[in-house]
Structures are given as structure tokens and as C-alpha cells.
């Protein structure tokens, strides 16, 4: 152990500000990257799910229209 007390550890022999600035920004940047990369998985899955639902709805609508047309044609004939 290089430090005899906690305040000495924080002070880092007078270089505390620079040392903790370095370690702090590193921790901040890396944890942001880690969390956003992890969260991206669920986000992409939800996006794909939404697109699938929209596609399914469009397909259903198309089929309904087709059926309607067919029934109209049958009536007019």
C-alpha cells in the first residue's frame, strides 16, 4: 500500500485533480459506451418488431382490399 490515509490517497501527492480527472473521464466514457451498446440490443429488437407489425398490418389491409374488390365484382356480375 502506497498511502497511509484516505485523504492522502485522494490527494495523490498533489496530483489528485489530474489523476482523478483521467480515471473519471475514462470510467465515464467507457461506462456510457458499455451501457448504450448493451441497451442497443433491445432497442434494435423492438424496432424490428415494430417494422414486422407494420408489414403484417399492410399485408392484412392488402388482402382485405383484394377480398372487397372480389366481392364487389361478384355483385356487379
Amino acid at each position, binding site marked *: *500500500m502506497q498511502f497511509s490515509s484516505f485523504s492522502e490517497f485522494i490527494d495523490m501527492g498533489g496530483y489528485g485533480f489530474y489523476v482523478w480527472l*483521467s480515471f473519471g*473521464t475514462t470510467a465515464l466514457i467507457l461506462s456510457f*459506451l*458499455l451501457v448504450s451498446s448493451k441497451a442497443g440490443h433491445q432497442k434494435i429488437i423492438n424496432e*424490428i*418488431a415494430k417494422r414486422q407489425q407494420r408489414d403484417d398490418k399492410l399485408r392484412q389491409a392488402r388482402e382485405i382490399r383484394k377480398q372487397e374488390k372480389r366481392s364487389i365484382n361478384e355483385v356487379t356480375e
Partner: protein
Amino acid sequence: MWKWLHPYANPEVSYHFTNKLLPWLSVLAAVFLCIGLVWALLFAPADYQQGHSFRIFYVHVPAASLSMGIYFAMAIAAFCSLVWQLKLADASAAAMAPVGAAFTAIALITGSAWGKPMWGTWWVWDARLTSELILLFLYLGVIALHSAFEDKNLAGKAAGILTLVGVINIPIIKYSVDWWNTLHQGSTVSKLGKPSMALDMLWPFIVCFIGFSLLVGVIICLRFRNEILARNSIRPWVRELVKTHKNK
């Protein structure tokens, strides 16, 4: 070797392989980083000239060498994707770019915070610092190109070409301290033969370096997984997967 590698060119296999790899990598990264950082901050001796400011070394140097290493890996992936049209190589290059950019930024910020007490200035336009800054801009350019096109293949091609052109910057960064007179000190760790460093400083550095490398692996795996899903969204296996994972 090709026979062994071949199945990994399949996005579904790669996706599941990455998923299986992730917990192991994460645990290893956490263990190495915890040991390494505690060692570096509490137990490693202070430098006889630089005092405790030397502890910045334990994040600065791994970040800087990883920023170059990731770029090199990204260039290999870009090359594979341009020459053999491997779509997964494209996905991995896209996954690596933001990680590399983050580590370049960390190297620059920690370098500044180390330079202020040691050199008396946050920044100088010297060869090492400037070429590392250019590396950051290269990464940002690659990220921008990846997201600039709706068509991911086209985006991958454009970003790949920029990546390959930018490779020239890597030896410039690496040897800048030998080629020019710079304020930045010469390399201490990677000197061929014996590193010019005391062993009780070298060991915590090695542990930190392995820890950061593993963390890079974890983040790249996480992003690679996302890239695979985004690029294969219409495949049946992704549709199945989406059904089971939706809004969990």
C-alpha cells in the same frame, strides 16, 4: 482452417457464438480490470520523478495502444469486406469504430491531464499528439460514413476505403516519437527486448492492459451482435428471435 472458419461466416452462427462468448468475456474483463486498477492506484510505486501523477500511465498507455490496435483490426475487417465481400466483416468493422473512437478520446484526454502537470501545458501540436488527434477524426469519419447511407453495403464500402487510406496514420503515430523531436516521451513498454520499466510497475500495467483489452472485446461483441441483427432483420431466424425477445 477455412473449413473450420466457414460456419462463422453465417450470421446466425456468429450471433449465437457471440452470445455465448459474452458472459465469459465480461467476467474476465471485470476481474482483470478490478485487480489491475486497484493495483495501479493503491499498490504500484510512485515514479521517482513524476510522483503519483504516474498512475495516469495505467489508463493512458493501454487506451492509446488499443486505439491503434482497434484501428488495425478494423482495417483488416474492412479489407476482408472489400476484397471478399464478407458481410460479417463489414458488421464487425462498424462495431469496432465507436469503440476505437472512445479509446482514442480517452488517450487524448488522459494524455492532456498528464501533460498539464508534467509539461506545463494541456496540449502541444507535436507529432505524437497531432497524429493521435487525426486518428480520432479518422474514426469519426468512419462512423459518419457507416451511418450516412441507408444501404449498409454501400456504407461499408465507403467506410472501408476511408479506413484503408487511414492506415497510413498508424505507423506515423507509432514511430512519431522516434522520427521527430517531440515533447512526448519515448516508449517504455514495447521496446524490443527488455522493457525499460521496473517490474513492480510493469505487472500492474500488464494486468490493466489485459483488462482493457477484454473490455474492448466485450463492447465489440455487444455492438457486433446489434449490427448482425440490424443487417439481417428480414431473415426468418431474426424474426423468430424478435418474437421471443420482444419487450422483455
